[in-house]
């Protein structure tokens, strides 16, 4: 049963991150995902300090806001400050992350929050962290509820917002010309990336989230050139990584989140070599496409 709970949690993290990650890499913003996942740290700590508990909505909202603030700062430094985009990403998130680290080491003395847990997560604790109602009924693992809710919200967002995301990602100036607000879709996407990151931090940690945001979508990108298929494949790769990672960790008796990220990397390597192998014989005898 515990196995199943951990695998389910890992899969939910992988699904929600993978779906959003597809759009991040198509927007050439993979590193913004990285930045958000680090920068939400002070948000998590401050929200935790204010509310005094880990499972609060305050925490999700607090960190979500910091996530949006991060993207806003990056855009600001890049557009108004004339800094290169990679430099503005670097400046913004390292600074916010450092702030979070200081806050943890400071507050960590009085409250139950520790650096390791936030940075690396502890998915193994998910099954024992139960949601018990006031009446004393045991509803099962709390994180599983949070992740299910977040995953559902993200699926609905992508389903409803598919065209907005597609148009603004593929051709932002045309989208703007036909009256679609590119700024709105940018911040919506970033808001959901922040939400996914924050919701995942308890299970896989703030750092390994990046692996789930980027690696399964990157593998999917190599395999297909259809967007719906890319979204599906990144879900498949995500779930495979979570499941495979769990058993790898079990056999090695190592970090579960680490093993999940490792398996996603292995799957990427396999995909990479597979597409290379498939591409090579074709390039040597590629038929020239005839134009009418």
């Amino acid at each position: 049963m515990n196995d199943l709970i951990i695998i389910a949690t890992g899969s939910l993290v992988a699904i929600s991150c993978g779906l959003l990650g597809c759009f991040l890499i198509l927007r050439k913003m993979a590193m913004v995902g990285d930045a958000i996942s680090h920068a939400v740290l002070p948000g998590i700590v401050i929200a935790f300090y204010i509310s005094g508990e880990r499972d609060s909505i305050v925490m999700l909202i607090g960190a979500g806001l910091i996530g949006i603030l991060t993207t806003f700062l990056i855009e600001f430094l890049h557009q108004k400050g004339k800094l290169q985009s990679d430099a503005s990403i670097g400046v913004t998130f390292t600074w916010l992350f450092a702030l979070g680290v200081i806050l943890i080491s400071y507050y960590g003395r009085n409250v139950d929050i520790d650096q390791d847990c936030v940075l690396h997560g502890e998915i193994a604790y998910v099954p024992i962290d139960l949601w018990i109602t006031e009446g004393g009924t045991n509803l099962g693992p709390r994180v599983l509820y949070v992740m299910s809710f977040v995953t559902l919200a993200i699926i609905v967002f992508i389903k409803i917002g598919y065209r907005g995301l597609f148009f603004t990602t593929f051709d932002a100036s045309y989208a703007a010309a036909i009256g679609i607000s590119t700024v709105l879709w940018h911040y919506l996407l970033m808001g959901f990336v922040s939400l996914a990151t924050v919701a995942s931090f308890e299970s896989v940690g703030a750092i390994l989230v990046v692996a789930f945001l980027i690696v399964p979508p990157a593998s999917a990108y190599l395999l297909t050139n259809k967007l719906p298929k890319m979204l599906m494949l990144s879900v498949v790769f995500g779930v495979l990584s979570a499941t495979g990672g769990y058993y790898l960790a079990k056999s090695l008796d190592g970090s579960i989140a680490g093993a999940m990220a490792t398996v996603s990397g292995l799957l990427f390597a396999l995909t990479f070599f597979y597409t290379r192998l498939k591409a090579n014989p074709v390039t040597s005898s590629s038929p020239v496409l005839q134009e009418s």
Partner: protein
Amino acid sequence: MIQQVQNPILEIHDLSVSYDRKPVLWGVDLSIPKGALVGIIGPNGAGKSTLIKSIMGLIPLNGGYVKLFDKDLDDVREKVSYVPQRESVDWDFPASVMDVVLMGRYNKLGLFSRPRKADRDAARFALEQVGMQEFAKRQISQLSGGQQQRVFLARALAQQADIYFMDEPFAGVDAATEKAIIKILKDMSEAGKTVIVVHHDLQSVAKYFDWLIMLNLRLVASGPTDKVFNEKLLEEAYGGKLTLLTEVGQLIKQEKFPGIEK
């Protein structure tokens, strides 16, 4: 030489645009008649793309205003179409030709409804017009540069707008395609649609366009081709690039271009 017209379909008044306080266009004041096939010419960096982008509301104006159909852009968006420079998007994006052409239908359809049969038909017809009907299912990453350009054009056609702005639609297309495209544009202009095209090849300017906008950071000329396509204004727009100007001078003589003769 700037010729203003009565009841213009596009009116630009005292427009100024700058990037980070560096002025790129200033004091542009022009009007375009309905149904004109207009060429925008000028050297690299003259502000041609900037002019189109500011008409499309993609960059903020420093001053002045733009009126389309005597209204603000926001009130007439669905009648206005835009073809960006081809290099402005990533053609490795996982989408099919049909996906891209269908984008042209969404300002009528709204982002949250599915394309109906009428929309697919319009998209297919637009692809036919540019000779790309067999490519509807093809992924855009598998197109040549000229085919990409035609897909962009089809997307604009699918929009069935009344005024079209196109940024270098002939860049990288072969002679046959260029001919096919200009035929489409001429037909559109005959049908009363206004088409405004950024163009680089001075050799074909007189053949293609009946109205010209000459730019070099400021407006050098705007008027009927036979009145403005002459050595003096070209020199003003292209500023002393002698070899080019002599070539054009010869061209003008060869073609015995009416406006220059007198």
